[in-house]
C-alpha cells in the first residue's frame, strides 16, 4: 500500500504531531508514535481489509469513525485513537464476536492465548457471560491431516483467505454465503485437500482466534520455551521456532523475525518435525564391526554388525578407506554425493573436498535433477 515518494504528510495523532510519507495508513502512522491500535483482521504481511472494525479511530470532521488500517493519511488530519466512545465501540465489537463464538475449553489455562483472547481480556469482556451458548458448526470439520478447522471460533477476518492467496499463492480459502452466515470455505465448499491445499499451514499461522489450528498439536498446551532454529529440509534456510515443553517439541511456529521466510513455511518445515526426536533417528555414528576390529567382510557373521562409536573413530575409518582406495585404484574410483539437507556452505566444502582433496570430478548432489 505504501507508495514511493518524497512527499511527507503532517498529521496529529492524539495531539502529537507526526510526519509520515504519503500513502501511509493511519494505523502505521500511529505505530510510529508508539500508539498501539487494536487490530484483528489486519496483518503486516497481508493487504488491509477493514472488516473487523477493531481499529476504528475518530477523525476530526468525519461523520463516523474510520478504520485506521485502510485509511491513508491526509494533510492536517487530527486523529483520536483511544477516546472513550471509540473504546466502547471496540468493546461492543468484541462482545458481538463473542456472541457468535463457541469454545468449550475457552480458558482452561492450558492453551496459548490467541490474539483474539488477548483483546477480549484487555477490554474486560466476560467470555462466559457473552459466549454463544451452542456451537453453530461441527468441530474439526476438515479431513486435512495437519490443519484443525473449528469455525465456531471464526470471526470472519479473512486472514486465512488472504494468507493462502497472498503468501502461499494457493487460493484454497474463500468466503461463502453472506451476512450472518458468512464463513470461510475451502474451494467450492469441499475438503481442503480437494481444494488443492498444500498443507503449508499459512492459514493457521495467520489465524487470530485458533479457528484454524495445528491438528498434531491440539491439546499440547503452552510451550516452556521457544527455540529459534533453521530448517534442515532444503537449502532455502527458513527459520522458525520450536515450541518445547518438557523437553519435547510440541509444535513449530513461524515468526516474522526469520530473515529469509518470515511467517511463511512449507508443509515440511511446519509439520515434518517428528523425525527430530524419533527413536529410530541416528544420533551417533555407527561402524561395521569388521572395520573396527579387523577381519573379513561377510554378510553372515557378527563382523557385519553395526557398532556405535565416536565421531573421531568413524571419521578415521572413513579417511583411511578413502585414502587406500585412492592410492590403490585412483581418485576417479571415488564419487561424492551431497545432500540438500546440508547448508550451501557445506555443499561448497564438499565440492572442494571432492575436486581438490580427493582429486575427482565425481561430485553430485541429490537436488541436481
Amino acid at each position, binding site marked *: 500500500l505504501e507508495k514511493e515518494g518524497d512527499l511527507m504528510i503532517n498529521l496529529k495523532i492524539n495531539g502529537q504531531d507526526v510526519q509520515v510519507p504519503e500513502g501511509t495508513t493511519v494505523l502505521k502512522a500511529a505505530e510510529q508514535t508508539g500508539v498501539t491500535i487494536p487490530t484483528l483482521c489486519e496483518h503486516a504481511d497481508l493487504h488491509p*481489509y*477493514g*472488516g*473487523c*472494525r477493531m481499529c*476504528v479511530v475518530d477523525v476530526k470532521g468525519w461523520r*463516523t*469513525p474510520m*478504520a485506521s488500517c485502510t485509511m491513508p493519511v491526509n494533510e492536517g488530519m487530527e486523529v483520536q485513537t483511544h477516546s472513550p*466512545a471509540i473504546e*466502547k*465501540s471496540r468493546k*461492543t*465489537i468484541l462482545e*458481538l*464476536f463473542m*456472541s*457468535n463464538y463457541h469454545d468449550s475449553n475457552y480458558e482452561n489455562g492450558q492453551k496459548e492465548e490467541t490474539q483474539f483472547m488477548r483483546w477480549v481480556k484487555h477490554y474486560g469482556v466476560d467470555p462466559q457471560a457473552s459466549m454463544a451458548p451452542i456451537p453453530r458448526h461441527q468441530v474439526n470439520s476438515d479431513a486435512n491431516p495437519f490443519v484443525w478447522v473449528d469455525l465456531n471460533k471464526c*470471526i*470472519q477476518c479473512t486472514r486465512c483467505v488472504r494468507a493462502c492467496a497472498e503468501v502461499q499463492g494457493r487460493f484454497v480459502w474463500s*468466503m461463502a*454465503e*453472506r*451476512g*450472518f*452466515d*458468512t464463513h470461510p470455505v475451502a474451494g467450492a465448499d469441499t475438503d481442503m485437500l480437494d481444494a488443492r491445499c498444500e498443507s503449508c499451514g499459512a492459514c493457521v499461522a495467520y489465524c487470530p482466534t485458533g479457528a484454524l489450528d495445528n491438528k498434531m498439536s491440539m491439546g499440547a498446551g503452552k510451550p516452556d520455551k521457544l527455540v529459534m532454529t533453521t530448517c534442515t529440509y532444503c537449502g532455502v534456510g527458513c527459520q522458525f521456532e520450536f515450541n518445547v515443553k518438557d523437553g519435547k517439541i510440541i509444535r513449530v511456529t513461524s515468526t516474522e523475525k526469520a530473515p529469509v521466510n518470515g511467517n511463511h513455511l512449507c508443509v515440511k518445515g511446519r509439520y515434518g518435525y517428528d523425525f527430530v526426536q524419533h527413536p529410530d533417528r541416528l544420533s551417533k555414528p555407527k561402524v561395521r564391526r569388521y572395520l573396527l576390529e579387523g577381519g573379513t567382510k561377510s554378510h553372515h557373521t557378527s563382523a557385519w554388525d553395526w557398532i556405535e562409536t565416536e565421531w573421531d573413530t568413524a571419521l578415521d575409518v572413513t579417511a583411511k578407506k578413502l585414502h587406500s582406495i585412492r592410492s590403490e585404484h585412483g581418485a576417479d574410483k571415488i564419487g561424492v554425493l551431497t545432500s540438500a539437507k546440508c547448508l550451501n556452505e557445506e555443499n561448497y566444502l564438499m565440492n572442494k573436498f571432492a575436486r581438490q582433496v580427493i582429486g575427482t570430478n565425481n561430485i553430485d548432489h541429490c537436488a541436481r535433477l
Partner: protein
Amino acid sequence: MGNVNFSGVIEVPMGITLREVINIYAKGMKPGSSFKMAQTGGSSGSIIPAALQDTPMDFESFRKAGVSLGSGALLICDQNVCIVDLVKVLLQFFRFESCGKCTPCRIGTQRTYEMVERISQGQGKLEELDKILELASEMERASNCGLGQTASAPLRDMLKHFRTEVEAHIRLGICPTGVCSMVVEEEATPA
C-alpha cells in the same frame, strides 16, 4: 405507497407537509384507515409518527426534527400496522442484505433482529431495549458502509416515537394492533 388511495410516483414541491402529500397527492387514506406513521426514504430512512406530519418536507426542517428525507420514498401506515412487526420486517431485510464483511453489521443486524423478534413473540425484556439502542448506535458508528450505518435507523425511531407500543408488548404481553403473534412460532423457512 401504503394504506393510501393512490400509490405511485409523484413530484411535490420542497417544503410541503406529509399531511398535504397524503390528502392531496395520495387522495387520502384508504376507507377505514387513519394515519399512524410513515417511513421516509426507504428501508433505512426514518419512521415518523402522526405527530410530525405537519413538519415541512425540506432538508432543513427534517434535520431539525431528526428525520431523514432519504430517497424520497414514502411508506404510509395506518392504525393496523404494528411498529414492532414493521421494524422486524425491515431488520429481516437488513440482515439478509448484509454482505458480511464488517462485524457491527454482520452480527449486529442478526442480534437486533433476534431481540425484536423476541418482543413480537412476547419474550421481550425491558432491559433489552437499552441493549437495542446501544447496539444501534454502535452499528451506526462502526459499520463499514451505509447499509450497516443506517440499518439501525428504524430501531432508533421505534424506541423514540413508539416506546409505549413496544413496552406494551413486553409489560402487558399484548400487541395493541393484534399483528404480532405473541407466541414463539417454528420458523417455516429458516433464513
